[in-house]
């Protein structure tokens, strides 16, 4: 083939250009430290790297989700720990009061301590983390528990707040306040506040369900009443139409049913003869299925109390009746106080009108009922605490897994994207040498011409 100076010039120019391009490319790789600087350097690798980077960001997000949830878990755990301790303390108090030897003053001061525990738990149940109430469900912008007229009301809802812990699963970070503190939806669930309130009530007075011992001081001077008006039918008697007998001659005894709910039994008394009184027992109508709030309902037929001429109680002459509370609205079994368990021992007919009640017996049965409920409540809290622990654990596991996966993804991406420093530098050096060699040879090839040798 014929070779001309143009051929060589072109060859040199193109060869140098190519060599220079290679040097520039190698230089770019060395300075950026990355194998892929433009999409076309490795289209498959570039989009894989982008996908991996997106995945890393999701993993970081999962870690962030989990980290954000930790204060909630930790705070809820500490609250439930406190609740368990408090309930245990309440149980200890109740156990100490079971004994008949405790005075009323002791019971009442214990009742005050129970009230303190109640208040403390109420404030714990309204714990806030980062401006959100832990146990309010979705309605966590305001305090979920408030002490109402009788019971503690739950103002939150059953919303389950979840966080995403990996691409396919979520983890609830909150416990439902109504379940934890009120036992709703829990098998054998206990209302923790109710138990404490009832314990307090038992300690403050009232009686047990079976074995009611009353000492009543009835007024000898009272005029005879006209009889009883509360009917036997549920929900018919308004309280204004209370018994027409002696005003103020009534006493309330709290009894507890099998599920620990308190019921008030009201004993009404009327003078029917010189030494004879009659009594009836009525209950609040709305505690019975089908009853109307505010009405009364007669539980037992009327019985009579006979006094001796000296005013002392004549047990033999008295007729006592069984008290049976049936059809309880809360679904508990019937409450029965047998006539044999009812005692008016210590009652008297006194010249001076003194009213009614002397409680002569510690409410052992009531306390035992509450202690049983406290145990159930403690178990309930422990169960939730265990569930919380399991969730916290799975959150930590998920967080660690995300972290590990992120490291692996990072390594994988680096392998695709990053230049091997040593290899890229040696490649750069190689191309540079090649370029220098090309320049040197070009200068030698181009220069000589026949002209150099003619003169």
């Amino acid at each position: 083939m014929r070779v001309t100076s143009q051929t060589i010039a072109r060859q040199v120019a193109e060869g140098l250009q190519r060599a220079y391009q290679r040097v520039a490319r190698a230089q770019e790789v060395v300075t950026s430290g990355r194998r892929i600087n433009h999409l076309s350097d490795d289209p498959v690798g570039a989009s894989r790297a982008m996908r991996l980077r997106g995945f890393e960001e999701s993993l970081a997000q999962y870690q962030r989700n989990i980290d954000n949830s930790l204060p909630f878990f930790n705070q809820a755990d500490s609250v439930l720990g406190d609740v368990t301790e408090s309930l245990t303390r309440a149980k200890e108090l109740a156990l100490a009061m079971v004994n008949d030897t405790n005075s009323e003053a002791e019971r009442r001061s214990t009742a005050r301590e129970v009230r303190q525990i109640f208040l403390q738990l109420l404030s714990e149940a309204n714990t806030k983390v980062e401006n959100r109430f832990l146990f309010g469900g979705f309605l966590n912008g305001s305090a979920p528990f408030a002490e109402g007229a009788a019971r503690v009301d739950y103002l939150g809802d059953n919303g389950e707040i979840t966080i995403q812990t990996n691409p396919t699963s979520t983890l609830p970070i909150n416990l439902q306040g109504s379940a934890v503190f009120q036992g709703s939806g829990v098998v054998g669930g206990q209302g923790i506040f109710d138990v404490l309130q009832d314990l307090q009530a038992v300690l403050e007075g009232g009686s047990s369900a079976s074995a009611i011992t009353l000492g009543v001081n009835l007024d000898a001077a009272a005029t005879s009443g006209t009889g009883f008006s509360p009917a036997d039918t549920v929900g018919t008697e308004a309280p204004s139409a209370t018994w027409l007998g002696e005003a103020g001659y009534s006493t309330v005894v709290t009894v507890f049913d099998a599920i620990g709910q308190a019921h008030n039994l009201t004993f009404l008394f009327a003078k029917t003869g010189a030494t004879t009184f009659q009594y009836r027992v009525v209950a609040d109508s709305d505690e019975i299925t089908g009853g109307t709030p505010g009405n009364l309902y007669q539980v037992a037929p009327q019985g009579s109390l006979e006094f001796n001429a000296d005013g002392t109680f004549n047990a033999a002459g008295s007729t006592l009746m069984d008290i049976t509370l049936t059809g309880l609205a809360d679904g508990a079994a019937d409450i029965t106080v047998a006539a044999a368990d009812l005692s008016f021992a210590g009652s008297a007919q006194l010249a001076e009108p003194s009213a009614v009640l002397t409680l002569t017996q510690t409410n052992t049965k009531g306390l035992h009922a509450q202690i049983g409920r406290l145990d159930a409540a403690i178990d309930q809290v422990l169960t939730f605490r265990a569930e919380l622990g399991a969730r916290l654990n799975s959150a930590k596991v998920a967080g660690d897994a995300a972290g590990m996966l992120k490291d692996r993804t990072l390594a994988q991406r680096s392998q695709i994207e990053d230049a091997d420093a040593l290899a890229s530098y040696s490649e750069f050096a190689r191309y540079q040498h090649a370029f220098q060699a090309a320049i040197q040879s070009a200068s030698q090839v181009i220069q000589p011409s026949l002209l150099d040798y003619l003169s």
Partner: protein
Amino acid sequence: MGISSTLSIAAQAMQAQQLAIQTTGHNLANVATPGFSRQRVDLASAFPSFEGGVILGQGVEVSAVQRMVDRFTEAELLSLHGTVGFSDAQNQALASIQEIFPTSGGIDAALSAFFGALSDLANNPAGLTERVSVIGKTGALGGSLAQTRQSLTSVQQNLDEHLRSSVERVNLLAEQIATLNAQIATTETRGEAANDFRDQRQTLLQELTSLTGAAVREDRDGQVNVIAGGLMLVGGARFASLRSDTLNAAGLHTITYQTPDGLSFDATAQFTVGKMGSILNMRDVKTQDLIDRLDQFAKTLIDEVNAQHALGFDLTGAAGGDFFTSLATTTGAAANVRVDAAISADPRLIAAAAAADTVPGDNRNAQALVGLQTTNFAALGGLTLQDNLLGLIGDVGAQTQTAQARLDFHQALLTQTQARRESVSGVSIDEEMTKLIQFQRAFEASSMLVRTADDLYQSLLDMVR
């Protein structure tokens, strides 16, 4: 016969060598002229005379000045210029497109950040900071999409500009080629060689085929016809012209073909090869396809997020409105990804809750919005948002890579063929210098012959004196 004959041989020889020296000079002068083909003076011995029973040589004569070309290589070069023109324009366009999609920190990063912000909102649905951050990240995503689309549109505009200047250039080349056609025909019918005209025309033809990928056919009278996409651009001394003064529906220029007789029609679809074919393909097909896909991506994002958002309830307990300003058409969607004005004015209106009565703690709708990140959408070919986007970016990379490889290959072919042409037509300084010395010596020898003839005359004259 006689001394005068000798003298005339010498004179003729000197003239021939002079011509040869001149041609060598011409070759040397054009050593760096692009497209120049070296010329060679063909010397032949003159027709002998028959005198006194002896055949006597009558010296030298110039039979032709030949242009050294290989017609086959020249034709191959023309078609290669068309191919390289196509690859080169495609590669240039794709190289600028691929820089629009950075290998990190592009739309995909903005998309991840957007969903990250929604995830943070799910972690704290009542938080105002989280809500503001969602709006900020959405703005960044919208900005990134709009900027990418804008860049693609300006690539399209640049290609359009390029097309228009190419059209101007084609017109100029067609006219010049037609003129040279006429000159070559005139010169050659006189029986002279139109060597330099042919070189000039060949250079122009190379540029024209590079632009249009046209086919070139030479007639018997030495004129060429140039046909691009079935349209005759040059036919002998006549030439057609192209105009690019009409806009199509997309606001880009079309190519109008106009015959020398003034007949004209839209010929945009005829240009499929060469640089112009490549520009049209990149402008109307490839770049447009990227813009359409980006719009489809943006429209799907807007529609799906809005649909999910409308199922939720905001911090005031009202049902969620539009999260993005909703759009009626897909075209232009990528330029208009914006947070709804009501929401940017009041971040509380982001609907993170799934029911009206479960605010502020309810994060279910925020979770559902985050869930869109991993949802496959039929409108995106059954892919997630991210996969669709990465598919688009991956396509750009793959196309660019292929275009580079194709250009490298065609360029290598061109270089090789150019080297082959050079080996036939190229000027070698050494060779010309050698010839120069050779012709110079020959000239000197001829002048010596004149002196010898002169001496002979002198002797003759002295004889008679």
